[in-house]
């Protein structure tokens, strides 16, 4: 039995039939492997997935610091998504709504008689107390079931209070994971916010960063470098983002895509609507950051930008040189498992490789096949009913803001050698008997730890303490265990320092008490009384 079969061995026929296609052993044959992804989880398996609401409100909309995001539903959903994702955000005027949780706190009568009246009243109170420019309504499970028309309420709010108001029907049961919520959030932003500002696209090196949620300050670190090089960052989706900025996102010349999973919809739609090209970059990992910066520079093909890109790379590398060598020496040969969302499990493999670490096992919670296998499989992906229920928004070119792009020859040349409008997926960076699991669960995690014995396991809080109890160092890759930034050059050193700390912290040596290996009772063979026993005799 190989490792994959050992993992699947315990399952009943029905569960086996489902899970077997989600677990893939990778080799170096170069033959493409297929994985089942973005499909329903098996009821009863302790999975790590969240829901549609968590993807929409928690991930994509939550970081917009000048937007009042109102959760329409009972209290829990709003409460759990309040301040728990570590998206750092600064508001220049100090009015940062991320510090707040807004909810309609629906009660039984609202469920029975409908919640629209309460929603309207809550919006009235928001306007009167907080005077925001933009309100977003996120629906939780019961709202869709009782049929509240939140879009109509949003329209009413815009007319009555002259504020921007967008409703998102992101009820938890939609789709199969957070992923559906990302899509719904993308659609809403595209329909109602992006392009609603009236700035003109007349800038030279203007970019948006998409899929950067500024966990632990990652976005700030990437932005710092990009600004040093000479780019103008128009907006970030959505880490430390704001309504104020993303409404003018249409003026950028290029979209940089960090998280492919959660926001590629916007990148694609902005291409159609504004002719803004997009490029898959990755600011996690030293080599990846260098590659990304050079590819973005190659896109603009400007001597000044090229020169400053190399200057910034050289100066950042120089600053981290000593630490980089130190941690590389300490960490080389260590092995890792990494299981997070829909992008990071790939991104962080590059960072681990920078320090000589090997990823033995990896997987995503809510990725789609293209995140594993590369965008070339998108035409082959069959949409199931759960996916078809999520609106596929189609957009038309917008003549007001349609861009002139780079010439076709340059575009085609870049497409050959860079990640311009391409994402290769995780598989191509794995092989050699490593295992990938989609929608991993608690049992499979236990099994992986037993079979592969990695030196460190990166995942989320739900696994963290189980992994640690089993004697394996663990770090949360959703929240970075309250550390960071991990992006770019200095971030890479932070990551290495934290990894080194977690593997080598002295407490690991104390798990087994000394009396397990050294006797505490002393005596001589053949002598009746033993020391300590004599007094009791």
């Amino acid at each position: 039995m190989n490792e994959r079969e050992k993992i699947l061995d315990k399952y009943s026929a029905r569960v086996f039939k489902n899970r077997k296609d989600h677990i893939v052993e990778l080799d170096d044959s170069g033959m493409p492997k297929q994985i089942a992804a973005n499909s329903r989880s098996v009821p009863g398996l302790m999975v790590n997935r969240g829901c549609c609401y968590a993807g929409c409100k928690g991930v994509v909309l939550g970081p917009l610091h000048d937007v009042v995001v109102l959760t329409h539903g009972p209290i829990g959903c709003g409460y759990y998504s309040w301040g728990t994702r570590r998206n750092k955000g600064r508001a220049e005027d100090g009015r940062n709504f991320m510090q707040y949780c807004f909810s309609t706190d629906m009660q039984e009568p609202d469920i029975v008689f409908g919640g629209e009246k309460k929603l309207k009243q809550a919006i009235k109170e928001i306007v009167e107390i907080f005077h925001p420019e933009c309100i977003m309504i996120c629906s939780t499970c019961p709202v869709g079931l009782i049929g509240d028309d939140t879009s109509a309420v949003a329209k009413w709010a815009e007319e009555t209070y002259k504020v921007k108001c967008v409703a998102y029907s992101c009820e938890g049961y939609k789709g199969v994971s957070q992923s559906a919520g990302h899509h719904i959030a993308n659609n809403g932003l595209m329909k109602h916010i992006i392009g609603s500002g009236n700035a003109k696209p007349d800038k030279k090196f203007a970019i948006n960063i998409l899929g950067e949620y500024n966990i632990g300050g990652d976005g700030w670190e990437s932005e710092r470098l990009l600004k040093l090089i000479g780019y103008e960052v128009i907006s970030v989706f959505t880490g430390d983002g704001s309504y104020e900025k993303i409404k003018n996102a249409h003026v950028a010349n290029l979209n940089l895509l960090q998280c492919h999973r959660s926001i590629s919809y916007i990148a694609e739609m902005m291409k159609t609507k504004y002719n803004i090209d997009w490029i898959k970059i990755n600011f996690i990992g030293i080599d990846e950051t260098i590659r990304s910066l050079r590819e973005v520079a190659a896109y603009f093909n400007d001597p000044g930008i090229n020169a400053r890109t190399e200057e910034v790379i050289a100066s950042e590398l120089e600053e981290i040189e000593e630490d980089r060598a130190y941690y590389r020496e300490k960490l080389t040969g260590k092995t890792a498992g990494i299981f997070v969302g829909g992008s990071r499990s790939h991104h962080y493999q590059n960072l681990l490789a920078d320090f000589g670490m090997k990823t033995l096992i990896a997987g995503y919670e809510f990725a789609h096949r293209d995140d594993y296998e590369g965008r070339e499989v998108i035409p082959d992906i069959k949409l199931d009913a759960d996916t078809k229920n999520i609106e596929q928004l189609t957009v038309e070119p917008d003549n007001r803001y349609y861009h002139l792009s780079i010439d076709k020859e340059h575009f085609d040349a870049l497409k050959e050698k860079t990640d311009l409008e391409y994402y290769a997926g995780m598989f191509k960076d794995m092989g050699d008997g490593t295992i990938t699991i989609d929608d991993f669960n608690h049992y499979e995690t236990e099994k992986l730890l037993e079979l592969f014995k990695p030196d460190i396991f990166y995942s989320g809080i739900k696994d963290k303490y189980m992994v640690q109890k089993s004697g394996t160092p663990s770090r949360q890759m959703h929240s970075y265990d309250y550390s960071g930034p991990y992006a770019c050059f200095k971030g890479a050193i932070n990551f290495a320092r934290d990894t080194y700390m977690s593997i080598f912290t002295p407490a690991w040596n104390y798990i087994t008490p000394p009396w397990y290996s050294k006797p505490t009772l002393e005596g001589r063979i053949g002598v009746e009384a033993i020391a300590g026993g004599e007094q009791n005799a």
Partner: protein
Amino acid sequence: MLDATPKEVSERKALRVNPCKTCQPVGAMYAALGVHRCMPHSHGSQGCCSYHRTFLARHFKEPAIATTSSFTEGACVFGGGSNLKKAVKNIFDIYDPDIIAVHTTCLSETIGDDLNSYIQQLENVPEGKIVVHTNTPSYSGSHVTGFGNMMSGFIKYLSKADAVKNGKIGIFPGFVNPGDMREMKRIAGLMKTDYIMFPDTSGVLDAPIKGHYEMYPKGGTKIEEIVALGSCEKVLALGELTCAPPAITLKSKCDVDFDSLPLPIGIEATDKYVMALSHFAKTEVPTALEDERGQLVDVILDAHPNFDKKTVAIYGDPDTVLGLASLVLEMGMVPKYLLTGTPNEEFVKKGQALLDKFGVEGCKVKANGDLFELHQWIKNDKVDLMIGTTHGKYIARAEDIPLVRAGFPILDRYVHSYMPLVGYRGAMRLLELICNALMDRRDRDAKDEDFELVM
């Protein structure tokens, strides 16, 4: 920090801002984790289960296991019966618990899933294994209600009245930490009481590291103990607002009498607990315990100039807030604001009664409130100290008020769940936390010439 919060309090009829409660299911999940070899099961969307497990893991810094029915749109249309059936089979196959404790969510409640019949119709429950359930609609009550409802669920399914009483007392510990349950049990042990604690998360959510993972650590109330609750002589429902409802359930099912007592936080509430045990077990209070009490009163007297008449805002779960209020009143402090997010007007009556008893005036007591309102009160009339859960840290920072963390949830500190708030020892720990917070503040704010070496 919280710069958008205006000082003027305006009436809100619909908008909840910065809640001081969460929804029922997480309380049910916590209660179920206090049963030995039990798998809590969330009957709803995956997100609920994920949020609740995350939340418990963040508070306890421990694994919090639970499974879900993983509803999709199809399940909402056709009902969740098929999902539950599959889930139960898979849970017993793969995770092998002795019992599955199902709780509902706003989703399964809104579509009207009938868990009673779903569970009766289950055909795949292995011999000797059990499935129980409770209803925890997220749109009523709070996590505290859900905790009590899950207890009632276990009782309804399992507790049985034997012909002969078993001579034991049931102790319902309230919505407290494993450290509190451990302390309650220690005191009951000192009182030589034969007891059943239900639920009991000690040994589950504070299990030690051993180098291998145990899905079901040795702690938790055993199934046979829940059965035996029905033959107990009596039940002590600690935390009246949390544990009286399940005590009533047990009373009506098995005719077991109960006494509702406040959570044993502070001197008098602990005295009541000790005396109730003494009365039941017919034991004298041992010197060891009496000495703990004497030590507590001793240190309060020693330290009282540092906290006497200081004002404090206390917020969190109803029974915890009442317990903390009772302690600070005994210390001579003024609990200026008492607030819980849980909708229960009994809280207001009991809080006011405490204030009246100590003759303290000018304080506000509110149930079904939120931290936004508490902040507004504080903006209008400041306090010297805040005691409560992590979410108050925004206010503490905005208004530069020292914060003592106590209650549920505490997401940003360690060790708290191991250490009791209850009993004389717990009160002494709280006293130290309160005193240190105030005295550190005095040190921080003192001018060089006023900076004291000896205090």
